[in-house]
Every structure is written in C-alpha cells, then in structure tokens.
C-alpha cells in the first residue's frame, strides 16, 4: 500500500487541479445563474454575490458627477475607471452595449480613479476628460480616450494627442489647454479618488451597482454583466 500511496496522492491532486480548472472555466455562465436568484433568497438558494455585498454610501465624489441614462433608472452603475487601464478599455464597449440594451433601465456614472503609479498617462487622461467635461463634452472625450487607448498609451507626450481629441470633439481647445491644468480639474479627480478610497476601491475597473460592488468576474464578458443587470432589474421590480 505504501508503494502506491504516493501515486494515489499524485493522481488525486491531478484530478483536483484539472477538476478545479474545468469548473472555473465552465462556471463563466454559471455565476450569473446564481445571481439570478432574487433576494430574499428562497430556502436552499443563495443571493447573488452583488446582493450579498453590503452597501457603503461612502463620501461624495466630484459634483456634479458624470452620469448618463434615466435619472430614476432601477439600476445605477457607478464605475471607477482609469483610461489607461487595459481591462477598463475592454470593459468600455461592454458597458456601452449594456447602456444600449437596457436603455431607460440603467444609469451610468463615471468616477476618476487614475493609477499613476502603474500608468504613466493615467492622470493626464483623467485631466483631459475632466477638462472636456467643463465644456459639456465629458462623455465624448471619455469614449475617445477608451476607444483609442492603444494609440496614446505608448506615446511619450500625450498632451498634443489629447488636444487633438479636444479639437475633434469640437470644444474650445485654448480653454481646454487652460482647464486641463486647472485646480478645478485636479479637485474633481481628487474628490473622485477620495470617494473611491472611502468605498475601498483598490483597482480598476471597479463597478458599484446600486451601491454594492460588483465582483470583477461579473463584469466581463458581456453576458455576465447582462445577467447581473437583469437580475438587479428583476429584484427592483419585486
């Protein structure tokens, strides 16, 4: 028995490793299925990870916040993002798609959470978006920054690139140049960052749905986020 025991252990670990990997790769659609159970949970069911999360109102961020969608929508998604963060860039079209699919039912707010220690142009990009926001074109700049992330993130100097974007979205470039280095823009980014820290945000993208943090695994791909939003809408209807 002692001669074969190590082989049994090795096979058990191999089985466990392959089984875990198989389960985790297969659980992509399974997670929202769990999330589709309404709260309060029926006997034998569990609330979704989002519904299990506690609501922490945090301290206010920059006001007015950058929001789009119906004001009294049943689902409010608040994203803390960094324009240079690759997963945020991947999440951007998914969120846009959800806004289209759930028009009238989803409201989206974007909060600045640049990570300058790992993304050299993150702060410049956040400032560009906020400066555009001062001329009422935040979302236009926001979309351009994400859509063209791969074009600018490797540039040495992004200022002329962002000024080009400012021109492209039709804002006053001279005013943009002044605003981008203004205290007001810096204060807005700081206020959003302060709110992020009060909510325990440590990475990007971090999304809160009706005040509760959505686990990162439920944000991508689109079908996961769709199921999570559908679940929240159903819960709100009850």
């Amino acid at each position, binding site marked *: 028995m*002692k*001669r074969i*025991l*190590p082989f049994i*252990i*090795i096979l058990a*670990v*191999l089985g466990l*490793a392959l089984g*875990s*990997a198989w389960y*985790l*790769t297969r659980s*992509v659609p399974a997670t929202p299925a769990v999330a589709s159970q309404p709260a309060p949970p029926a006997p034998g069911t569990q609330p979704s990870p989002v519904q299990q999360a506690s609501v922490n109102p945090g301290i206010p961020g920059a006001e007015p916040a950058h929001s789009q969608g119906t004001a009294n929508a049943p689902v409010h998604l608040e994203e803390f993002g*960094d324009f240079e*963060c*690759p*997963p*945020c860039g*991947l999440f951007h079209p998914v969120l846009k798609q959800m806004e289209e699919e759930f028009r009238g039912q989803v409201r989206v707010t974007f909060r600045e959470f640049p*990570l300058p*220690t*790992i*993304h050299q142009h993150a702060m410049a990009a956040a400032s560009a978006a906020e400066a555009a926001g001062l001329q009422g074109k935040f979302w236009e700049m926001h979309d351009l920054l994400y859509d063209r992330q791969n074009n600018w993130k490797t540039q040495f100097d992004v200022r002329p690139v962002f000024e080009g974007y400012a021109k492209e979205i039709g804002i006053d470039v001279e005013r943009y140049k002044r605003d981008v280095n203004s205290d007001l823009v810096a204060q807005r980014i700081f206020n959003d960052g302060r709110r992020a820290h009060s909510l325990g945000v*440590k*990475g*990007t*993208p*971090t999304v809160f749905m009706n005040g509760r943090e959505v686990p*990162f*695994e439920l944000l*991508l*791909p689109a079908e996961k986020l769709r199921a999570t939003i559908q679940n929240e809408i159903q819960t709100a209807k009850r």
Partner: protein
Amino acid sequence: MRKIYVTAALLSLLGLADALYLTVEHLTGATVQCTILSGCSEVLSSRYAVVGGFPLAAIGAAAYFTVFSLATLAAFGYRAAGTLLTPLLSAMFVVSLWLIYLQAFVIRQFCQYCLFSAAITSALLLLVVIGRFVLKPASV
C-alpha cells in the same frame, strides 16, 4: 530529509494553485484587474505570456505539478525522483529570473502573481538544495 520533500510538495501546491488561476484567467479570456500596486494586466496580456501557442501559466502549472509529483515520490523513498527535482527546479528558477527581468526592464510592470510564483520557485530550489547538499549525509 523526508520533511524537506513534504514541505516542497506543499509549497509546489501553492505554485500550482497560482499558475492554475492564471491559466483559467487566460483560457476564459478574462483579464486581471489593474490594481494600485501592480501591472498584472500589462504583464499577462503581453506577448511573453504565451510560448509556442501555450499560455505560459499553463506551462508553469505543468511544471509545478511535476515538482509536486517528484517531491511526493521522494518523500515516499523514491530516490530517483529526488535527484530529478534539483535540475527541474534550477530550470524553473532560471525561467523565473528571465521573467522578472522581462517585467522589470521590458514590460516595466510587475504582476504580483508572477512574483509570487518566482518566490515559490526560489524557496523550492533553496529547500531542495539544502536538503540534498547540506542535510544529505545525516538524514537520507
């Protein structure tokens, strides 16, 4: 000496779990969130994350599983298995050094999961070297 191999087997399980997590992330197309302290997404989405069409993390998982198997066999008295551990872990250590170099000087971002793996590999090599060349005469 047996304790050394048992410890090595347990340590390799940590490395296996780490590599498996990254493999699953790679296979499901998921990305790793950018965090304040690391550049995981940059490292794991770089061209160095795939070798010959295989995710590097999967190759790492296979390597850790091999280490686990050899350490387990060695703990049960299969001496040949213990002998194979040193060259295997040396190769893994060299690869870890190369990956740290890539993170530090080429990608210029660090991934905590990759650093954790490098730490595990280093600890494993140290453990086995101590076991084989320091404790060997007294306890084998």
